[in-house]
């Protein structure tokens, strides 16, 4: 029998209550309502990445309806996912104040580093709420890494005790700019988890975070592509309202992450 098959068979040793929990999580044993917002993520400590963070200390931005501030962790947050209580470690925490609702937006990519940059290309065409670049091969680590991920979050998800949590990444110096009405935060962040078994290789990702303090949306443009390319993508984004309203109650969890993952 193949080695992997021995492992598959050995899964039978897992305690039934663990299996039952996983079955509930998958919705196999009971009806579980899907999340209203499929792209909303609640992600675990094992993720390679995270969100912009708080090397700038407890700064409040009173330019508009929403305010954003950052602070250092570590701290643990407990949230429910699929009916299960899950703990999320946060090395850095980003918090928001403001209304519990805000306009939903989507974006359009108008500039790309290359013609075949996006994967799948259809996802990045037209108006969308998620765009992902083709993975790039990292010679040093021998793995594929995400070139770029762009998606939208909303400050209304995080108000009143919620947070965007940085886990698994240490941001270096954060620079702040203003592009029209949008606050822009750029930084590099070094992963705190190695990508090799010898625990010697730590990747560094680039982050460009756009925050609109009046409308409450946050768009993360991040990945292992160059800062120059990511900033170019971010600068080229067109953002418009969908006409819908996002409410805090739309989200299963008041916590979220903006991560980079390996392809």
């Amino acid at each position: 029998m193949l080695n992997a098959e021995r492992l598959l068979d050995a899964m039978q040793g897992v305690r039934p209550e663990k299996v039952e929990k996983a079955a509930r999580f998958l919705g196999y044993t009971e009806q579980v309502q899907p999340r209203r917002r499929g792209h909303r993520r609640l992600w675990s400590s094992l993720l390679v990445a995270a969100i912009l963070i708080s090397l700038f200390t407890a700064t409040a931005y009173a330019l508009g309806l929403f305010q954003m501030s950052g602070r250092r962790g570590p701290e643990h947050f407990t949230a429910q996912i699929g009916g299960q209580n899950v703990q999320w470690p946060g090395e850095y925490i980003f918090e928001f104040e403001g209304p519990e609702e805000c306009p939903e937006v989507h974006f359009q990519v108008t500039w790309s580093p290359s013609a075949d940059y996006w994967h799948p290309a259809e996802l990045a065409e037209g108006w969308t709420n998620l765009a992902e670049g083709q993975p790039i091969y990292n010679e040093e680590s021998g793995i594929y890494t995400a070139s770029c991920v762009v998606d939208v979050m909303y400050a209304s998800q995080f108000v009143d005790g919620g947070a965007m949590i940085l886990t698994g990444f240490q941001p270096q110096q954060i620079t702040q700019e203003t592009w029209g009405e949008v606050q822009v935060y750029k930084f590099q962040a070094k992963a705190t988890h190695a990508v090799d078994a010898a625990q010697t290789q730590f990747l560094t990702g680039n982050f460009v975070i756009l925050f609109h303090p009046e409308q409450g949306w946050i768009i993360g443009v991040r990945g292992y592509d160059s800062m120059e390319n990511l900033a170019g993508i971010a600068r080229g984004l067109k953002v418009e309202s969908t006409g819908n309203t996002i409410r805090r109650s739309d989200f299963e969890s008041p916590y979220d992450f903006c991560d980079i993952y390996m392809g």
Partner: protein
Amino acid sequence: MEDSEIVDLYWQRSDRAIRETEQKYGRYCHRIAYNICANNEDAEECVNDTWLRAWNAMPTQRPATLSGFLGAITRNLALDHYRSKRSRKRGGGEIPLALEELGDCLSSPSDPEQALEARELEQAISRFVDGLPETEQLIFLSRYWFLAPVAEIAARLGCTQGKVKTSLFRLRQKLRLYLQEENLC
């Protein structure tokens, strides 16, 4: 109906036992079988065989967790079904992908000194799972116990498939290291 009541029906040798089981766990077992067989007809066959196995097992068994008990039977039957099909040069479903992913977690069994007794490995896997944070447990078991597609896990988590793949990659690394530490590979 409560699980304990269903189990009582089996012990009473009541025909209702299977009807109630099918009603409560038919979809559950079918999902497990379908993930492995990738074929409705084969999955249905495994599920029907599950009821038969359950009927033959109770009594004397009185499972504490009926879903786990039935799921394990279905999973075993479906894996056997898959192996039988593969031997006939067929197959499909999530198994080949999951096997490929897990392939580097154990060394070759050709060295008899490193060959594992199945029970030892089961216990090690159980300890490994117990030691994972809850979300990692869910992801790991979803993929490698239930053979759920990555897309399905991603949908449940509300994240991209890439994120799930990343999580699984790290979990396999952890598992490999764990098995090495335990001298099990």
